[in-house]
């Protein structure tokens, strides 16, 4: 809705509230004061009890922000993974996690396919000096930190399988990872201000992933669903 209609909406809301107040109050007679009294008592009892119950809740069941060191480490890993992988050394990135697969390829051509029509994963290919028919697939991923909360456990990983001469990368279907964050009471904030003890909450995502393939020198890559990034040979030599 356009912001132009906001005052109109406000006016309608005020009128509706006035009507509710006028007729709602008169409705008391019809509903019966006793029943209404119980409803009101219940509502206000719920309100009064709520902060007490809130204080009794176990804090360990909530998601706690990660400490500054973990945050910096994950941030550095996410920033470095891609550029370092282009030099052929993704495993050297500090804080990166891996999943590995190894396949034996019969034949001299390989097709890399996705299980999805629109693949998202970054795939890098390095040709090894050997010609032993062994394909190594390594899925590199960093810790996933969403708004300072570690959600790594909720991130689904990719799967890699080899069928004849086709390497199939199975990326997870669309899903959502959601966090719920309460803001400080804006009325209280006016006089209490920003609590110095609390760290500012960062609305950001720290997460990076890529699949790194090592394929034998003689294997020819066919047209793929993915844009396959080749690790340049000279950089490989430098390694």
């Amino acid at each position, binding site marked *: 809705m356009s912001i132009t209609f906001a*005052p109109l909406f*406000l006016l309608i809301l005020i009128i509706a*509230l*006035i009507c*509710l*107040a*006028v007729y709602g*109050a*008169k*409705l*008391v007679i019809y509903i019966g004061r006793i029943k*209404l009294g119980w*409803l009101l008592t219940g*509502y*206000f009892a719920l*309100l009064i009890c*709520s*902060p007490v*119950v*809130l*204080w009794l*809740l*176990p804090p360990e*069941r*909530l*998601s706690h*922000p990660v400490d500054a060191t973990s945050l910096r480490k994950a941030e550095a890993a996410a920033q470095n993974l891609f550029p370092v992988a282009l030099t052929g050394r993704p495993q050297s990135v500090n804080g990166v996690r891996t999943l590995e697969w190894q396949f034996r390829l019969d034949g001299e051509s390989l097709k890399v396919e996705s299980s*999805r029509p629109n693949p998202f994963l970054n795939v890098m290919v390095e040709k090894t000096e050997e010609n032993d028919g062994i394909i190594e697939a390594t899925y590199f991923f960093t810790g*996933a930190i*969403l*708004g*300072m*909360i570690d959600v790594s456990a909720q*991130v*689904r990983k990719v799967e890699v399988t080899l069928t004849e001469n086709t390497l199939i990368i199975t*990326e*997870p*279907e*669309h*899903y*959502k*990872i*959601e*966090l*719920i*964050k*309460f*803001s*400080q*009471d*804006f*009325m*209280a904030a*006016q*006089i*209490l*201000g920003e609590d110095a003890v*609390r760290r500012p909450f960062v609305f950001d*995502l720290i*997460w990076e992933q890529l699949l790194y393939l090592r394929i034998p020198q003689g294997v020819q890559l066919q047209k793929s669903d993915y844009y396959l990034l080749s690790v340049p040979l000279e950089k490989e030599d430098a390694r």
Partner: protein
Amino acid sequence: MMSLTKIRLFYVTKKQYKYKLMAYSGLFWTLAAVQTIAILLSLGGTGGWNMGRGTILFSIKTLSNEIIVLLTFLWAFAVSVILTTKSYRDGDAVFVSNRLSSNLANGAFLITYCLIGGLSAVLGGAVLRLIFFFSTGGLGIVSQNFFLSPTELAAGFAVTTLYLLLISTAGYLCGILVQCSKVFVVILPSLFFGVLILAGRDAGIREMLLQAINFLVHESSFIMLTLKAILITAVVFGIALLISNRTEVRK
């Protein structure tokens, strides 16, 4: 010589106030209804942040008691307006009273309602937290700002009540003006929309409006905020009293 029928203003006001509390208890129902609606609306979140990465949608839903507080403001405005309507004014006829005692009783009644509204609006935030905790088991709820400290609750209650007082007094003045002359039914909304439109077009007017709002909103000292709010409330209510008394003389 003192007449036997001369009743002290304070006594009459107190009687009227007690009567209003009992007679208009239905307004509590409307408060509960408005706040329940506000809590339900708040479940959808008051803001958020989304980022799609591959097949994953990362999302942070932000929640607060803003909607509850804002709807309570509107409720307070509506209640103060209807207090000046004929059907509610007729309730004063059961007492030997004058316009002053009736207005003072209304003022006391509004203060009571503002206190209850302020407290319930702040506690509504706690209810909202409980709803989310018990529906999710705490999974995915960020611990930051989740637990409300007694200081936060007290500060929230105090500030919300002060704003409710200001809004309800403004509503009361609007109601009195309408009772004074029906022309104000047209003038007041026109003025409201007119100022909004002008503020949208003219930066000077917008700046002036913002300065007026910031006079209260940017006040971080509780004592100063209280003084300002009470002063404005007293002036606005005083104007309403004067107009109301004048109305009776006319009639």
